[in-house]
C-alpha cells in the first residue's frame, strides 16, 4: 500500500530514500544489540586501567585506541552508549507520557484549566532548558536518575503543546459532537476518539526526542554536572578526552562523538520516513 501512493521524485530519489531508511534501521539495530549483548557476553572490565597501554592509537588489538589511563575505548564507548541510550529512551518516554497527558487534559477540559496549564508551560519554556536541567541535576547527587529526571522535566513541554494543538483540532470535528450526542462522557471522548488520534504524533515526537535527550545527557556530563565522571557515558568520554585532543590524540574524542552523531542521524532518518507515512503530502518539507 505505502509504496503505491505519491511518487513525486521519480525512481532515483525513491531508491536513495529506501537505502537511507534501511541503513538507519541497520545502524540502530546494531547499536541496540551492541549495548544489550556486549556487557553480559564480553567479560572484560571496562574500568581496567593499564598505564603501560595509555593513549595507543587505533590498532587491531584496540580498534578505537585507548584512553589516557590505558582503558580500551571500544569497550568504554559501548558502555557509554548503553548509559546514554538508557537515559535517552527513559527520559523521552517519561517526557512523552507526561506531555501527552498534560496536553490532552488541557485541551479536553478547556476553559481556565487549559489557560492555567498552558501559561505554566509558557513559564517553563521561557527558561532555557539546559539551564533548567542544570538546576534539576544540581539538587541531587550525580547519577543516572537525576539526569533522566532533568531531561524529562525539561522536555515534556513541546510534546504537551503538540498534543494540545492536535486535540483541539480534533475536538471541533463533528464526530466528537456525534459522540457527545450519543451520551459519551468526557473521559470516553478523550480515550476513545481524541487520544488515538494524537498517538501517532506523540509516538513520533517520542522517537525524535531520544537523540535529543542523549545530547542533553552528554551536555550535562560534559559540563561535569551529569553522571559521575568514572561512569562511561558519551558525554563523559568526550569530556575526559579533551586534554589529549590538544596533544594531537584524536581518537578518544572522535569515536564517542561519532557514536553520538551516527545514531542521531539514524533515528532522524527513520522518523522522517515515519512522518512521511503519517502525512505524505508534507513529504518534501521533511527530507533530512
Amino acid at each position: 500500500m505505502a509504496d503505491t501512493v505519491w511518487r513525486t521524485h521519480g525512481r532515483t530519489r525513491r531508491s536513495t530514500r529506501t537505502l537511507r531508511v534501511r541503513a538507519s534501521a541497520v545502524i540502530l539495530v546494531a547499536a541496540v544489540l551492541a549495548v544489550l549483548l556486549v556487557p553480559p557476553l564480553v567479560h572484560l572490565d571496562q574500568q581496567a586501567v593499564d598505564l603501560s597501554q595509555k593513549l595507543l592509537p587505533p590498532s587491531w588489538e584496540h580498534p578505537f585506541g585507548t584512553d589516557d589511563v590505558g582503558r580500551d575505548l571500544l569497550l568504554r564507548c559501548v558502555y557509554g552508549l548503553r548509559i546514554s541510550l538508557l537515559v535517552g529512551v527513559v527520559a523521552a518516554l517519561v517526557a512523552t507520557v507526561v506531555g501527552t497527558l498534560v496536553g490532552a487534559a488541557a485541551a479536553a477540559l478547556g476553559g481556565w484549566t487549559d489557560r492555567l496549564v498552558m501559561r505554566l508551560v509558557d513559564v517553563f519554556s521561557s527558561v532555557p532548558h539546559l539551564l533548567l536541567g542544570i538546576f534539576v541535576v544540581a539538587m541531587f547527587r550525580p547519577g543516572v536518575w537525576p539526569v533522566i529526571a532533568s531531561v524529562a522535566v525539561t522536555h515534556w513541554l513541546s510534546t504537551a503543546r503538540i498534543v494540545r494543538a492536535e486535540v483541539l483540532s480534533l475536538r471541533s470535528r463533528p464526530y466528537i459532537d456525534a459522540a457527545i450526542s450519543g451520551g459519551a462522557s468526557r473521559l470516553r471522548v478523550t480515550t476513545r476518539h481524541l487520544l488515538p488520534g494524537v498517538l501517532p504524533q506523540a509516538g513520533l515526537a517520542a522517537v525524535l526526542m531520544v537523540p535529543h535527550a542523549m545530547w542533553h545527557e552528554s551536555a550535562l556530563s560534559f559540563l561535569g554536572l551529569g553522571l559521575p565522571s568514572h561512569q562511561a557515558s558519551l558525554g563523559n568520554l568526550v569530556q575526559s578526552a579533551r586534554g589529549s585532543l590538544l596533544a594531537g590524540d584524536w581518537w578518544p574524542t572522535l569515536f564517542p562523538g561519532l557514536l553520538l552523531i551516527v545514531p542521531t542521524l539514524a533515528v532522524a532518518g527513520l522518523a522522517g520516513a515515519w512522518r512521511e507515512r503519517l502525512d505524505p503530502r508534507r513529504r518534501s518539507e521533511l527530507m533530512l
Partner: protein
Amino acid sequence: MLDLKNITAGYERGRPVVREVSLAVAPGEAVGLLGPSGCGKSTLARVAALLHRPDNGTVTLDGALVTEWRHRAPRAQRTTVGVVFQSPRLAADPRLRLREIVAEPLRATGRQIEVRERVDELADLVGLGGDLLNRRPHEVSDGQLQRACLARALVLRPRLLVCDEMTAMLDASTTAALVAAVERYRRETTASLLAVGHDRTLLERWCDRAAEWTELSG
C-alpha cells in the same frame, strides 16, 4: 416535544448567527426547516441537539427546561435527541469500523449487551449489507457512511431526530432510502423529526409542515 423560544446563538460574542428564532416540534410531528445556506439553520439544529449553548432564549425538551449543554447536559437528556450531520466523512471517526461507529453510543452508555442485536437490526433498517459493517470510513462511499451515521443516531432510540442537511451530499436513490429508513423508525416509535435543509421539494413531501427560516424570527 421540542420548543425553541427566542433563540439567539453565535460563535463570537456580539455577533449572533441566529437571532430571536422560535420553533416548536410537537410529539410525533415532522418539521422541515427551510433556509438558504449560511443563514444559521445548522446552528439552530446544534442548539436543538444540545450541542451548542445559545446566548439567549429557552429550550424546552420533553417538557423539561434545558439548562446545560454538551457534556454538562444530563446523559438521559442528551440521548433523547439523535443527530445526523451533513458530511458523513467529518461525522465518523476515521479509525473505527462502521460496526463500531454504530455501536459506540451503546458502549458509551454502558449497554454492551445489546450491541450485536441492535447493530444488526439497524444495519437492516438503513440497508447496510454484506461486509460493509466491517469496513472503515475510507473504504465506503459517502452514501454508505451516511447510512451508518443515521444508524448511530437511531441506536439509542431517540424521541427526536435532528437531521442537519442529512441528504445534501447524496444521490437521489440514497436520499430516498435514508428518508424511508427515518420514516420507518418514526412509524415504529412515534418519534419527532426536525429536518433542516434547503431542498423545498424534499422537505415538503417528507415533513408534516415545512417552516421557512425567514418567518421564524420574531
